[in-house]
């Protein structure tokens, strides 16, 4: 198996926690992993991305080649579109629909959603709303991970194990809130994916 994933969002939105959780799950399954992150200036409210590659064979490049990503997971709708040149023909885009508006020329939401709707394989989910519904308002990033889980070549249980390892030191309550968020995101994605299209 091989999954090439691009994670995107705005600095501070928690894409590295998603990456770390998938990373832990990959280790749990004895897979190879490479994950390139953005540190430094862009983390101050700028566009950020992370290339995450997991595979049962050794991985060469830390960066995913153009047109080869199997999945884009975005915690912000406009950011999801910034990385389309990397998405493969059959790849899925899973994005949050709650915008993060910190620039004066942020595009019209309807135009943005229409661009997302054009894509043949996509899931658009209001992760902030779902996070609030499961009473875990800070976990919209983990809702996104849950929504992406059907497209990851990893057993779902290992993502829960990953969450326990990543958030374990913050206490049992934080772990449970994140697992609730993960489940809610996953349920949404399964309910909104046409049968047999995965």
């Amino acid at each position, binding site marked *: 198996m091989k999954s090439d994933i691009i994670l995107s969002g705005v600095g501070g939105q928690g894409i590295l926690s998603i990456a770390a959780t998938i990373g832990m799950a990959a*280790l749990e399954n004895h897979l190879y992993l*490479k994950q390139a992150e953005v540190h*430094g200036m*862009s983390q101050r*409210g700028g566009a950020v991305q992370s290339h995450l590659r997991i595979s049962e064979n050794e991985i060469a*490049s830390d960066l995913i*080649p153009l047109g080869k990503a199997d999945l884009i997971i975005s915690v912000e709708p406009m950011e999801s579109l910034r990385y389309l040149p990397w998405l493969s023909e059959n790849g899925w885009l899973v994005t949050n629909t709650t915008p993060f508006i910190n*620039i004066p020329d942020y*595009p019209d939401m309807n135009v943005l959603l229409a661009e997302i709707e054009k894509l043949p394989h996509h899931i658009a989910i209001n992760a902030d709303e779902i996070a609030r519904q499961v009473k875990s308002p800070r976990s919209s990033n983990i809702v996104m991970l849950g929504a992406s889980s059907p497209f990851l070549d990893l057993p779902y249980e290992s993502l829960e194990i990953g969450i326990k390892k990543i958030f374990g030191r913050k206490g049992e309550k934080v772990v449970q809130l994140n697992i609730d968020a993960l489940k809610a995101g996953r349920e949404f994605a399964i309910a909104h994916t046409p049968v047999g299209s995965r």
Partner: protein
Amino acid sequence: MDKLLLLGAEAIAQGAIDGGMSGIYAYPGTPSTEITEYVQHNKTARDRKLHSQWSANEKTAMESALGMSYAGKRAMVCMKHVGLNVAADAFINSAITGVNGGLIVTVADDPSMHSSQNEQDSRFFGKFAMIPILEPANQQEAYDMAYEGFELSEKFKIPVMIRITTRLSHSRSGIERRELKNENPLTYPEDPIQFVLLPSNARKRYKGLLSIQSLLEQESEHSVYNTFIPGRDKSLGIIACGIAFNYLKENYPSKSCPHPVLQINQYPLPFSKVEKIVDECEKVLVLEDGYPFVEEQLKGFLNINSKIIGRLNGTVPRDGELNPDIVASALGKEVKQGLPVPKVVANRPPELCSGCSHRDIYNALNETMREFGKQKVFSDIGCYTLGALPPWNSINSCVDMGASITMAKGAADAGVRPSIAVIGDSTFTHSGMTALLDCVYENTPVTIIISDNATTAMTGGQASHATGRLEEICIGLGVKTEHVKVLTPLPKYHEEMVKTLREELLYEGVSVIIPRRECIVQSVAKNKKEGKVRTGEVKL
């Protein structure tokens, strides 16, 4: 042994700890910061009480590491590429003094300038100093080279450079640890004047450095990191340095590359191996992240070796970081992009955080400067450099650490009034104090705003040497007490800030204004830890 999931930077730190390091010295700088931070939080390092506190700047870090080496212990100093410019005096001379305990100089370059002012290639500095350079291709090699680097340094009694680039530094992968080595005992150099670079001794030591150059080249020749991989299609040979090898492999999965490949991860260049690939191939493509360092050496000024191709002839772009697609194009392979980025997607540059104190001081400064005219504000390197962007457009320079004060001085000498510097607290203690002393010495009419957020914020909130002693430092350097003004940068004190700024801008002498409020990121993190913050209050 254990398997760990580490960033390239962290792998270097773990390798150094396991290799018997006694101390690490550094000033934070992207993409090198995580090396020292890892040591600061590592259990073995804590149990062993390894030195890991931050230094004031890269020069003091380099010198402290050299001092630890003098005492026979293994030491590492790390920095970003431009930090090596600051440390260059000590660095070049450390090759002449040589070392006692193993000394590794780790430099993280930033091609494509993700977080930097230039993309200079530190391998030139390594060659300039005439020391071995190790350039890991992956996280495991980063670990291994740090682990083995001390022995290499002790074998030849000179410092060793480890050069990485942003991509490896900030990419995570699995590494296998090796046995934890003991630290060196405290020993003095055998020769009591080894480190005395008086001309008479420096000449001797320099001849010594020259005399081992052929041995260093032999070391490269036999290094496991410089591998020749035969190939049947000799119309092209490929030299891949450091991380470039990964991008090459990505383009030829499962060892299918038909061309001879020479992987170079240790310098000086291994002569016989390079000669072999150049001799047997019709053309040789050089792939290296950074400047055309190897390519230039092979081509030479007269371009006698016209079969060498790479960044200099346009096969590879002359600037910027490599990636698998650039390498694919250089190999003549088709790159199949996905869909284009829709036009509706707007740029999202980094910005000052909501609630950041720099915002308040720029608002006050902008209002004050309406009376005094444009283009008189020199600034520096840190989060506040973002004040150059809209909506502030407050500053007119960002060159190197500390330059705000000295450039403001030069401009004042030229007649600019008022001449203003905006610098952060950590940048001030890094390289601004001597600049301030120059101003005090001549009583130059400059207004220096030290925007004090009590941390080194841009690199993630490391301790700042200035915290709690900024006024004392300025007064100690000779600034008159009545012209050291402390402000609280908050919207409600806006008028007061404007008033103080106006007064000091009109003063014909050195004044220092210190707007002081804790970095909002640090303050939120602290409150979160103590359970005081309201959810969603500040989003960064």
